């Protein structure tokens, strides 16, 4: 994918490589790496370092039966893994989260739609559909928010984000993303804390909308 200008920062790639990133953020990292050779290479380099550390670890004795149990299992039949491939604008990890089906959108008002892909105490990740020319409701957030464009583009105070680009917004950035004119902007957005929407969804309704 050419034209990607906003990438995943190192600390997120390292935390992803090390397995210490929430599921919601991990989905954005996996989706971006699926579309961005540069970040795939950077992730590969971090994994090379992780591997070097693993290689250097002092050995911890394993119990005597472990190897035998493992070898007994080598010829066991393997269940075929059901995996979903990339489809249309959705890279494979997103199709995986969608269970291989097209998104089931829920209206949020003013033509904006969303589909929650995953939601738990550690955060949430959703697909957002914003009609061309339409603003995303003004919101601030308590934690980190990653927004990756899958279709169309949006602009806000910090720049322009096209297909594959990831906006990293942390802490107190209050931004007003506006979808570019043309086809709807579809984004994958992950947060690690509840968004505080200011405009049309009162905070009391947030648990209902799971925003």
């Amino acid at each position, binding site marked *: 994918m050419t034209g990607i200008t906003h990438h995943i920062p190192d600390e997120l790639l390292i935390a992803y490589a090390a397995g210490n990133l929430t599921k919601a953020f991990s989905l954005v990292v996996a989706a971006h790496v699926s579309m961005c050779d540069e970040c795939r290479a950077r992730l*590969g380099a*971090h*994994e090379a370092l992780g591997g070097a550390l693993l290689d250097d670890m*002092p050995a911890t*004795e394993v119990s005597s039966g472990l*190897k035998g149990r493992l*070898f007994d299992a080598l010829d066991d039949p393997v269940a075929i893994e059901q995996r979903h491939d990339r489809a249309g604008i959705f890279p494979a990890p997103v199709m995986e989260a969608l269970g291989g089906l097209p998104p089931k959108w829920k209206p949020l008002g003013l033509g904006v739609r969303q589909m929650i892909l995953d939601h738990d105490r550690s955060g949430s990740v959703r697909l957002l559909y914003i009609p061309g020319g339409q603003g995303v409701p003004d919101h601030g957030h308590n934690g980190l928010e990653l927004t990756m464009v899958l279709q169309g583009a949006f602009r806000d105070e910090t720049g322009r984000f096209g297909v594959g680009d990831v906006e990293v917004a942390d802490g107190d950035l209050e931004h007003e993303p506006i979808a570019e004119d043309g086809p709807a902007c579809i984004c994958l957005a992950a947060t690690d804390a509840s968004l505080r929407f200011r405009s049309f969804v009162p905070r009391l309704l947030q648990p209902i909308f799971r925003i």
Partner: protein
Amino acid sequence: MFEAPDALCDDSLEAPVAPARVSEGTSSCRESDRVTGEAYSETTVWMLAVRDQRDKVAFGRLFDHFAPRLKGVICRSGLPPAQAEDIVQDVMLTVWRKAHMFDPGRAQVSAWIYQIARNRQIDILRKEKRPVPEELKPVEDTEDDASQVVALEQETQALRAALKTLKPAQRDMVERAYLGELTHAEIKAETGLPLGTIKSRIRLGLEKLRHELKGTERK
């Protein structure tokens, strides 16, 4: 990440297990048609024998090398030894089953196993499927480009040498970051993390990998 501080592995001080020579069977994977004359590392030779010949002797050697190290890494997260061993077994079984995906031109054995270990650890402990990037289609010709493999091994050696130059406190910080003990916010905030020192190495590796990735086809 996985809190169980009262159940630390306490057998980590025991003598390291030397890779046992399980039998005289050699892993003779295509060693004859290596063009460069430069040797692959032992672990790469073993892994290729597992991939290409389903060589169980070579797999046993990989186990002897990596299982005690994997156990050490997994125990750092605070898991009791028995549960850590279950994960080690699962990781090594995955190495055996996914061996056909191993591409020595793209990843060193240790990096490949590191990544599998993280995936399996999360899938098992969090009981969820970790989102993973699309896999690149394996290269068309089945022959590995020996010069690429050797170049990547040399990069990794250089990376390893760079790691050796770190002060103990820096080394500790790098381990905590790459073994999953620091959050992304902590990694970002950690000024003691000698990213500058290792970054030049990573960048070189990156250039190399970027070169590898250029033109690779996706499924």
